[in-house]
């Protein structure tokens, strides 16, 4: 596969480490009400779509950016690649 890195352009997927579901960005906090339940949901309850899926990839053999890659699990078509830090900010993780 080829991942179109937002800063570096097209790179072979062998340069990357694949982590999984990009919902890992949405980590709850210890202070949340029902934190135990929230962490259980966060860590163990995932969708497994046949189709578009947002995943975290790490450009380990490159610039060490975490990326959010939207990949179709049935065709491997990659429709969008974003820097995970931008995505985290967009999801309200600025502190």
């Amino acid at each position, binding site marked *: *596969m*080829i991942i179109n890195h937002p800063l570096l352009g097209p790179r*072979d997927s062998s340069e990357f*480490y694949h*982590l999984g579901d990009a919902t*890992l*960005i949405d*980590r709850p*906090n*210890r*202070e949340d009400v029902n*934190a*135990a339940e929230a*962490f*259980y949901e*966060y*860590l163990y309850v995932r969708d497994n779509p046949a189709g578009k899926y947002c995943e*975290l990839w*790490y450009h*380990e053999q490159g610039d*060490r*950016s*975490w990326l959010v890659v939207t990949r179709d699990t049935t*065709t*491997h*078509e*990659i429709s969008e690649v974003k*820097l*995970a*830090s*931008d995505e*985290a*900010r967009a999801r309200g*993780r*600025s*502190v």
Partner: protein
Amino acid sequence: MTQDMRLDGGLVDRSRTISFSWNGKTMQGYQGDTLAAALLANGVKLVGRSFKYHRPRGIFSAGSEEPNALVQLRKGAYQEPNTRATVAELFEGLEATSQNHKGTLEFDFLAMNDLASPFLSAGFYYKTFMWPRAFWEKVYEPFIRSAAGLGALSGETDPDVYDKGYLHCDVLVIGSGPAGLSAALAAGRSGAEVLLCDEDNVFGGRLNAETFKVGGTSGVEWARNAVAELEVMDNVRIMSRTTVYGAFDHGIYGALERKTDHLRSANGKPRNIAWKIYSGRAILCAGATERSIAFGNNDRPGVMLAGSVRAYANRWGVATGKSIAVFTNNDDGWRTASDLVEVGANVAAVIDSREIEPFMNIPGVSVTVGAGVCDTTGRKALKSVTLTTGQTLDVDCLAVAGGWSPNVHLTCHQRGRPSWREDIAAFVPGGDLPPGMSVAGAANGVYGTRACLVEGRAAANAAVKELGFTASRKGADKAEDEPANITAYWHVKESTKRAWVDLQNDVTTKDVKQAEQEGFRSVEHLKRYTTMGMATDQGKTANVLGLAIMAEARGKSIPETGTTIFRPPYSPVPFGALAGRSKGKDFQPYRITPSDKWARENGASFVETGPWLRAEWYVKGDEKGWRDSVDREVIETRKSVGICDVTTLGKIDIQGRDAAKLLNMAYANGFAKLPVGKTRYGIMLREDGICMDDGTTARLGENHFVMTTTTVNAVAIYRHLDFIRQCLYPDWDVHIMSVTDSWAQYAVAGPNSRNLLYKIVDEEFDLSNEAFPFMACADITICGGIPARLFRISFSGELAYEIAVPSRYGDSLIRILHKAGKEFNVVPYGLEALSVMRIEKGHAVASELTGQTTAQNLGMGRMISKKKDCIGNILSEREYMNSDEIWNLVGLQPVDKAMKLDGGSHFINKGDAPRMDTDLGWMTSVAYSPTLGHHIGLGFVKAGSSRMGDVIRAWDGVRKKDVEVEIVSAHFFDPDGERLRG
């Protein structure tokens, strides 16, 4: 032996005679021959035995689709089994032998399997070897293993070199027949970067096997001219002997180049290269493969594909028989007869299954229409064929033309499904091609030469336009479209004898029908039940035929019956090529420590830890075994001072105003309040509360920390910190950098370590216990101004330091430390002594942090902060993880002090049988403690913390051992830590 079957003409170089041997017999061929062509020229009919029934078999085809002629090439370590004689190029001195027979090829003892064939039909494994169950391991499996398989491996290490490579192009053209060459020319003329690959050793594809005219000259000549034009284009690269074997995601293709297979010796050059090709667009011009027709005894040596018979005559100047008959269901079969007559071969008859007017008038050839061949005779070579009309023809070669199947394989590598075209009785590429791929020529079901040239050009022009190039206006060269009408005809129903569908796997029409009757009706089930379409040829000549027969048996159409999925590789790829240079020592890169050179000079032996080579112990004097060295290193270190290279531990430099926040989030224990100039031990959890890693982190400044990780987790922890930094807290002001390689780091341990360091640390730095206590750290200078970092940390339990200098000083520092330490009898110690000392202290390493164990298991549950948010602390609070029933890390010592302990032993109570439900835990680490004078161990014992002093059994079912052990504290040595604080 003379080449009796050689005709005039052909493309071989008759001025260059080549000697080779077949089963020990010396023969001659010409430069340009394949082994198959040369064997046929020498009148060799029988070349192998079939897989299951050991039936005599001959050469069936002239290309990579060959199911029968699998042979062994070369000798000794170079031996290469299962090579298709039809693609093996002849070279001087080639030694080839037949395979898959017991006894000689002519008298194969396993031919008795053929008599037992009624018992060996489809699914016989599943039915026969079901019972009694106990027979499986002792009787059935050894029997099947001895009978199964084709060629044999030498058992020696492959001495050849293989390589991997990467290529980039705008347009990849796969195949160099008329469509492929036309596509490559058009794409090349547009200025695009073009890569043209062909599996053959010459370009031109079928043009080399036919007598077609192209552009006013012979097809062969036209192909040569096209290649000459491509060769001078700077933007075009052409590769022969290169099979594109797989279509992968995003325009990536896999290709195997056979670089030196055609030479007697590779002379150190790579035998094969596995290429990874990145393409903008790909044009598949892979041509088509002819298939057979099923009729009684259609597997005899001499029954061949008609297009191949024609290829042997036209390209190699070889007659495949003294008297040849053609059996066809289509127009193309007739061309075999006319071409053969043209080159002077003897054609006895054409039998066409269609009720048609004779298609052409070929002098001297009898024609029968509306008939088929229903049986043959001749055990080791064809003698006669019998027609459905009852007529018998004495022929030694039968050319069968069952129609052509487009080579759609690569169009299906991303789950694309081909579609059926009734008019040409073939599967053509479906609509769902891999992105960026187009198909042209026979691979697309287009069989006329003119149409192939036009379609190849059109596909290339479309591709280059999509990439932003301007297509060349030059038109395709002129040619004719040859007639190619066909009426589907799959098997001769009048036949009463066994009729083969898949020659390589000995699958007959009866097996296919039986699969249908027994419910294995889906094509995927048919394949697995009968093995049709498996092994080296992947059913290239068989699949469509088998499908058609299944469709007929089910009373359904072929499209309703479906096809199996084609997967890479298109043709076999040697494992050696896939491995490339990554074998043995070079399997992966290895890293050496800064003291590597010094260690080699001083008797070290080495062990791999992660990617590193670390000294495991240093042999001194006449020490006989490793235990002598390790025991001495431990005793001397605890007595005076020892030095160990600990550079391999991961080091991560962490800086920024939010550096402490990052550490507080990553570690389960608190780091925010760690004072500058201090080091702290920390444990990291995964989000699920399982222990991930441990190590020490030093605070060198308000906003500057240096973290150490375990050697094996260095990469994973760095990635984890970056995850927290980028994905969870993108606006924290903190940056990290791996500095593992930047600093050479040595542990200096033992009661004299401070005295030793006094000799090299610059005067202004006070190392006294008061000024530089346990867990202190500082930037210092040594040896008159060399920058260094000093940490007062201890893994050995001794008064100890770790000293780090920029890597370039690493070799120098190890020498200076040993020189300075001479007066204290300093010793180097290796990884094994380090391990002994950490077991004596009860420190956990990867054997204890297994990815299954929690901080609570390790006795460090109380370290997990509940005051702050950090990775893993919430889920570590789950009820079971905190119950009294969990495993606890404890020390274990043998009741009989003379007994040895073994890692991996399981613990059970005295009197219990060793079972899952009585299992109490397992031994994680063991060592002989020279300090205590007996073996000691660490292990996890269920509720072990409350069982101090209990005696249990360490049971080892693998080594057949059973030792009574006492549960003790994991801190065997200096439990109060007086030594390390001294």
